[in-house]
């Protein structure tokens, strides 16, 4: 809830086109929910983003778009282990699907 409020406030301040949300959920379903919240709005209709379609750029930390844009040593040090532990394909598929469906900035 607190995170939803933060995303909403930051988006109002800096504009949706200047926002990227990076998520780190450990499983596809949770990651998908987070991605949906910052694009199509809170699917549980419980938080400040209920019914608010921000359509933000959203990526999971294990997605190639993010991985390729950061220093590989730092990535390995911070995320390398979890990349091996998590079901990366499932997470990528889920988050990418939501981004493509609800994102407003598909660049």
């Amino acid at each position, binding site marked *: 809830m607190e995170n939803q409020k933060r995303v909403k406030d930051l988006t109002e301040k800096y504009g949706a086109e200047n926002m990227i949300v990076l998520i780190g959920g450990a499983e596809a379903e949770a990651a998908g929910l987070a991605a949906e919240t910052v694009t199509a709005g809170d699917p549980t209709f419980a938080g400040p983003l209920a019914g608010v379609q921000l359509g933000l750029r959203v990526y999971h930390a294990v997605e190639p778009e993010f991985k390729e844009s950061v220093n590989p040593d730092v990535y390995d040090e*911070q995320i390398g*282990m*979890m990349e091996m532990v998590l079901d990366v394909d499932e997470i990528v598929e889920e988050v990418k699907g939501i981004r493509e469906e609800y994102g407003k900035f598909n660049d």
Partner: protein
Amino acid sequence: MNYPVVKGASYILVHAEDMVIHNGTTQSTERVINPDSEYLKKLPNHLRSFDEAVNYLPNQVYIGNYKPEDLKNQQQPWYQNPLKDADRFGKFGEMMPEDEFIGLIKIVDVFDLVKLTKEFTEEVKAKLEVHPLIKGREDLISRLKTGDELSDIEKLIDEQGAEPLITGGNTVGCVKRAHDVDENLSAHVLFENLVSKASGVLAGLNLIAKNDINPDDVEYVIECSEEACGDMNQRGGGNFAKAIAEMVGLKNATGSDTRGFCAAPTHALIVAASLVQSGAFKNVVVLAGGSTAKLGMNGKNHVEKDMPILEDVIGGFAVLVSENDGVNPILRTDLIGRHTVGTGSSPQAVMSALVTAPLDKGNLKITDIDKYSVEMQNPDVTKPAGAGDVPTANYKMIGALGVMRKDLERAEINDFIGKHGMEGWAPTQGHIPSGVPYLGFAREDMLEDKIQRAMIVGKGSLFLGRMTNLFDGVSIVVEKNPGKADEEKGVSEEEVRKLVAEAMRDFASHLLQD
């Protein structure tokens, strides 16, 4: 280095059916928010009997009658595959039914706060008089006294805020409040503290009895539960340790409490090892009782999935750390991992600090540790609640670290988990499943030469106390004792060689002389 040893361990469970309903926080919160809820109505039909809890494989592993590897051979969920005629008494400890435990709560109360009915006192006295560890302890049994009238007890509950003691659906006694205003001495808090104390005492009694320990030899006790005792001027003032030592009969011991949420037992183990290795004390006991608050914590998920409430047991354990005897497994105080203030909170930073840092100190590979004892929560409990299989998640991360260190190939992670990991068997009682449940088996496996090394890892979520957002954890390597006896043998072999050489020289010189 003269490392301290793990000289014994005990593990106990208390089956607390009625306490699930009346004292578990999930249930007590529901009663406040939603007193007519479907969950509260359905709950009683999902409770297990004592015999069912005894015949539950993970519980039998906890008290030492079965081994962790036996869990692998039985299909999950284990509650669907009960054992037959399992024993409530185990190699490491025991499972106590609720009525006997309420008797024990009365026994450990020294302030006349616990009142039991006359009938119940008689019943429970008869049972405790034949309990193998309590029957010889007239000093304990006599503390039950003769009991009070039910009407007096009901009056205390109705008019003076006493907490009812219920078993078999009947009120058999109460815990009185110790102060009119002070919340820290309310009946509710005292009840929880007495439960923690009584289950700690039961673990202590089992430690002494099952490991052939002379209680007079114990010099220090470290209690590491998650409860706080004290009054409004010193909430958490503490010393459960000494209170428990008194009842166990450790008359030469003093002690203190160590806190650190779920990580506390491993913190306490490291403190105990340090006290022994420094020479401050020869024998230090680390122990903890369990909590009623966590009973039925995931009950809503269990009932929703039409399963029995598996969180129906209070846990306890005790470990004796002693001077090196050349036999029992050593605690490698030079191979300790710790999550520091500066470690960071990413899973990778946490696992590196706890697992690979101590290995680096000893020039060990991830695969040099035969068994990792992490958060050994029973997956039967956690999976239906959406928390997954906690030990397996930990082993995956340790395996992945191994790949990153090039100790194993990526394709070997699953083999690694199978070989160096274990299925979880401990009840979800916070500190109880954390690292220590395997110590008893580790000791046995090392004494029987089955494994060389184990790592005990304790992790804690400090945010729950709202004082810091930092994560916490510590770890320590336990190793098979290389043995003083071997050293002596080495010396004597050399002596023999010297003697033989001398004899040969003598002989040769005689030959030359001749």
